[in-house]
């Protein structure tokens, strides 16, 4: 029988909420029986996106929530993280691995998301990111 499910929830904009949100995502994905590596990558990418949404999008305003959508089917896991901020242009982020930027502490979270997930797409406004990981990789 095909497995598929989706769950949406909202996270207050506070770093203290990250562990519980992350645990909620991983627990929702349990039916997929993913290996340790995949779980590590999914957790890391989700947390990086959530942290950016809390810090840069919603600017730590607890009255603003981050919307999280977790979906899976037989082929993939999709994680969507959306804040209520003004958005940004991810194309303008400097490459954190470029020699003159490597020791600057900006952009590494998004870089890891792009390397560990199979697809990372921002909406035009830049306040919503959808990350996809194919299960067959």
């Amino acid at each position, binding site marked *: 029988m095909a497995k598929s499910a989706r769950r949406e929830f909202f996270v207050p904009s506070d*770093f*203290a909420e*990250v*562990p519980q949100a992350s645990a909620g995502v991983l627990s929702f994905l349990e039916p997929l029986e993913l290996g*340790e*590596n995949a779980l*590590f990558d999914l*957790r*890391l990418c989700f*947390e*990086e996106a959530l*942290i950016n949404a809390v810090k840069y999008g919603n600017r730590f305003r607890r009255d603003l929530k981050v919307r999280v959508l977790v979906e899976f089917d037989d082929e993939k896991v999709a994680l969507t993280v959306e804040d209520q901020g003004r958005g940004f242009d991810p194309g303008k982020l400097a490459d*954190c*691995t470029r020699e003159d930027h*490597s*020791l600057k*502490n900006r952009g*590494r*979270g998004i*870089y*890891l998301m792009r*390397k*560990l997930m199979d697809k990372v797409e921002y909406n035009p406004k830049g306040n919503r990111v959808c990350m996809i990981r194919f299960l067959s990789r």
Partner: protein
Amino acid sequence: MDAKTFQKDGVNVFEVAGEININTSPELRKLFERESLKRVVVDLQKVSYIDSSGLATLVEVLKRVKAQGGLLGLSGMSDKVRSLFEITKLDQFFLIAETREEAVDKVKQPS
């Protein structure tokens, strides 16, 4: 996260356990700020998870050590943690060793 620090062969060794994440990395940063940072080894053998804030904390320590003309070694990384350093190309900037003893050897002052 738990961290303890001790001296070995003139090297400040920081043994970190648990997760270095957005909520624990500030505590680790404060620990580094309290100690002298000329010859340093950070042993990550008991670290199960690190995020970009954890990587940033280690980069900040590296910069401080370099500013004092010192050396910083990392040891005991799991394959997963090591892969994050490789993906972000940070492995080019740190002395990396399999064991704490090897890292101390690389970093200590020649006798």
